[in-house]
């Protein structure tokens, strides 16, 4: 029986991953008011790119910190390119159409990526190479924290700090914030909104890919459909925190991770079967949308006629 601290650690670990993916959802929604259904699949793409990079560059044979760094950066770069390509070819041409059209297109892209991977690579899970010499450190109580969990915490915190620096301390970041306030006014101020939108997609996708690689280290089984449920939960996290709100995405991610872990961990005694793990996120979504649709940190927007 795991202790409270252990559940806490595990919950925060998963939560950090959800936070990384949720950041991508929230940034894209903030500037385009579009739910990028394909974002969860970018997470999967990141994991697979990392897998192939590791094998191609020969890092699959043994643990190597350098290898980990290369794999991480490589997958982030490729995912950024994929994200930008998706935006350019599947979303930009239909930006002027109705919301439903872009939504359907997003679903189409998501299905396309998933099924392309299944068709080419098969749906069977593959084992991600161990790039970290796995080790468990015991904490107070009966809790233990593994090296890969520490890696997840360290890398996600670093990436989030980097993102915050980009958004608040650079010109590009200021432009991103301007576009999220009002696209047309940003255009009038001379901002090339197409470029900024591409950059936003690139950043979000890079974070999701990092999440993918980190998860693959922690839980070495990867398969082409792994992005669906995780992506959906990360979306719930973004909504929970207030969609469009960046700290909200992080908060939402951590909360969903904790909720999921605690419900499954302690619920076993109350008769909640572990298969309900996925239902937790959906239940939270429904509760949030019923009682506080703008999210925890979001602000209410008046709909003007």
């Amino acid at each position: 029986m795991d202790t409270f601290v252990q559940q806490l650690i595990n919950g925060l670990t998963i939560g950090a991953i959800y936070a990384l993916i949720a950041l991508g959802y929230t940034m894209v929604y903030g500037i385009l008011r579009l739910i990028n259904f394909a974002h969860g699949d970018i997470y999967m793409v990141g994991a697979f790119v990392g897998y192939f990079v590791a094998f191609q560059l020969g890092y699959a044979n043994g643990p190597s910190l350098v290898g980990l760094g290369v794999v991480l950066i490589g997958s982030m770069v490729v995912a950024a390119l994929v994200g930008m390509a998706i935006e350019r070819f599947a979303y930009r041409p239909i930006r002027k159409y109705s919301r439903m059209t872009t939504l359907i297109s997003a679903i189409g892209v998501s299905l396309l990526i998933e099924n392309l991977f299944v068709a080419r690579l098969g749906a069977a899970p593959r084992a991600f190479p161990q790039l970290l010499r796995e080790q468990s450190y015991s904490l107070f109580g009966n809790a233990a924290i593994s090296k890969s969990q520490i890696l997840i915490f360290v890398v996600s915190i670093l990436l989030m700090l980097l993102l915050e620096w980009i958004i608040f301390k650079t010109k590009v970041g200021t432009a991103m914030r301007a576009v999220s306030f009002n696209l047309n006014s940003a255009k009038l101020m001379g901002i090339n909104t197409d470029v900024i939108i591409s950059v936003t997609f690139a950043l979000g996708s890079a974070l999701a890919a990092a999440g993918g690689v980190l998860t693959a280290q922690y839980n070495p089984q990867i398969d082409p459909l792994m992005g669906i449920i995780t992506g959906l939960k990360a979306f719930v996290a973004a909504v929970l925190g207030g969609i469009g709100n960046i700290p909200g995405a992080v908060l939402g991610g951590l909360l969903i991770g904790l909720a999921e872990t605690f419900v499954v961990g302690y619920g076993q005694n109350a008769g909640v079967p572990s298969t309900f793990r996925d239902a937790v996120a959906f239940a939270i979504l429904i509760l949030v949308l019923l009682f506080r649709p703008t999210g925890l940190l979001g602000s209410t927007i008046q709909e003007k006629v």
Partner: protein
Amino acid sequence: MPILVKRFIAALVIVLLLIAINQYMSEEGLFGFGAPPYYARVIMLVGINVILAVSLNLITGFTGQFSIGHAGFMAVGAYSSAYLTVYYAGGWERSLTGIVGGNPAHALIFLLAILVGAVTAALAGLLVGIPSLRLRGDYLAIVTLGFAEIIRIVILNIDKVGGATGFTVPGYTNFLWVGAFAVVAIVIVFNIVHSDIGRALVSIREDELAAEAMGINSTRYKVLAFVISSALAGMAGVLFGHYTSFLSTNDFQFIRSFEVIIMIVLGGMGSLTGSVLGAIVITVMPELLRQLPGDFSRYRLVVYSALLILIMLTRPQGLLGTREPGFSWLKRARRQRG
């Protein structure tokens, strides 16, 4: 020709057609032409998908409420009717046979099962619809997806209906049932759409605030459309479950909901003829793709998704948009009467 005569002829033609197809699909065949079991399966699935497409079009195409939870209501209908047919039908049928004879008893039981499936699905639709329909497009889509998944996970954990291992149900369905109820579904949706309820629904789709300003209680109409749509989906679920004779929650995942969406998007979201067309194309296409040389059948879903994106990029209104070529002769007759 007076409208009543036109309608009578239409009904006669449809009934004869259904009987003919049913005969074609049976062992003896139609005038000696029997259907290979493979064709029979495709025809059945087309019928079921027509019901699904037409019902989803009511809520998504005509009312503009984007729902990705259709598979969930199908599952509710399938499993609730299955509970009836597996645990109770045997006894009831035996008692009924004493009163009305074998075949009518069989039919009555199935009719009851379909009713149960439709009603439970309608209730589920009510439960899901009332809280969700206040939400805007993208959120509604995600919430309906969430509800469908919750429904599926809950069903998965009920051991009385098989749980993870699946549930074997008696095979009641034949084409006569599927065809008849497909026609019923089309008639129901057609009549709703061409009534003042339908006009209210379309006005909600076009501009909800303006509709409210004109005195239309949009929530009431949205919930109404949603409940009818889920009832029909439940009906389709009953027919589906008792055709495949084996129920598994894997058949009701969200990919199933997406397939129905593709059907109505392809056909045209405001068009009934379009949904029928879309249902036929999407059901038949994978079978055609299966004949392709080599491994192309693997890429079936890739083709689906690429098709979806392509339609959105080039012709987002689908093949038929909001036009209804199949029914125009009936409509012209309607206008004559007024």
